[in-house]
């Protein structure tokens, strides 16, 4: 059986877990047939993981005072004027009913809508940097994890799989959400890139479409479905996160 060797571009993306599932499957077939190629990919992933491990501790360092001081204004914070301008802009387009403006201008705190993506993104930020204790219960105890979190959430949970996209389940944890218990599942590529799925109760049981938010530098897709609300957070761009969010949605809905 002669399969054409994978393109260099696809191999690069495969190593980074950035290849579309169908193309990734083709690369996997090629790797199965070619041990030398498989060894190359394994070596590249090992290098990426080693680099991540080597520098991960910097993320947990306390920030040096001189760097914190650098973010403080010397005379005037130039953002203030622009912030005021943005507020005016918000009022202007808010009047025009621009839903689109949500992504552009900070929302006034009275608007409750962004609670889910914000809470999810905060939980994401807190735990993705964890080296030792990223989860409470690991993927090796998946049955226990699902049973435990389902009981605490009061709804049967499903843990979607994203292996096809290069993200393996790390495990999950219980969190205190705004209205009671919430659950967080973490996924990770071999290069250490992490995603978290935050699951919270859905206060008024309505359903929504997919929505996108950027919170604290993380991309978040969120939606409500039945008794639960879901938010998938990642430190990747919107375009990269969308197919992953779709995969999660489809697995939960079916």
């Amino acid at each position: 059986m002669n399969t054409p060797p994978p393109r260099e571009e696809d191999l690069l993306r495969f190593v980074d877990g950035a290849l579309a599932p169908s193309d990734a499957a083709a690369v996997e077939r090629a790797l199965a047939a070619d041990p030398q190629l498989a060894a190359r990919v394994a070596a590249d992933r090992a290098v990426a993981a080693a680099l991540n491990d080597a520098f991960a501790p910097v993320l947990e360092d306390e920030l040096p005072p001189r760097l914190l001081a650098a973010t403080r204004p010397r005379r005037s914070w130039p953002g203030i004027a622009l912030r005021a301008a943005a507020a005016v802009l918000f009022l202007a387009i808010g009047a025009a009913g621009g839903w689109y403006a949500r992504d552009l201008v900070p929302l006034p705190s009275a608007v409750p809508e962004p609670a889910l993506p914000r809470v999810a993104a905060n939980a994401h930020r807190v735990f993705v940097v964890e080296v030792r204790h990223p989860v409470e219960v690991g993927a090796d105890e998946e049955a226990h994890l699902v049973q435990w979190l389902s009981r605490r959430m009061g709804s049967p949970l499903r843990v979607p799989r994203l292996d096809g996209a290069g993200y393996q389940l790390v495990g999950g944890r219980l969190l205190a959400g705004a209205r009671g218990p919430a659950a967080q599942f973490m996924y990770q590529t071999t290069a250490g890139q992490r995603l978290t799925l935050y699951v919270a109760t859905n206060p008024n049981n309505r359903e929504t479409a997919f929505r996108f938010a950027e919170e604290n530098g993380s991309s978040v897709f969120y939606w409500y479905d039945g008794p639960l609300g879901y938010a998938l957070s990642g430190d990747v761009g919107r375009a990269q996160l969308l197919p992953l969010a779709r995969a999660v949605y489809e697995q939960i809905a079916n």
Partner: protein
Amino acid sequence: MPSREDIVELMPRLRRYARALVGDAERADDLVQDCVERALSRWHLWREPHDLRAWLFTIMHNIHANAVRRVVRGPGFVDIEHASAAASPADQIDRIALGEVLNRLYALPDAQRTVVLLVALEGMTYDEVAAILGIPVGTVMSRLSRARERLREPDGAAGLRVVK
């Protein structure tokens, strides 16, 4: 409009990338400080919608690239001891020798090291890296390909034959 808190939020990542890029902790923080100060001095150029992380990394890259162009570099001081000592002790077994990987990393030309680190540490897409470095996506991929080849070489022979 991002705020001071947003910059502080991103700072651990800026520091991690800078540390990996230049090796030495003090020089890395100098780079982060220069980056933040320059960003604030250009705050009025901010346009929504815009990715703050991409903007800060672009600024940092430009500062670093200028510094590299100015200074004729000797063998850079590599803080391997700190990096490996701080690394998580878990899964030592199938981990490749970290010191060796770092040696090869710092033997890479700057242009290749930049691409490898933005992809490996920040998980950026090739498009994002291209935008930050101001180069075509094809160039990002060819640099990544060459860098990975050198990083995985058993003795790093080709990687060390960089002529000054």
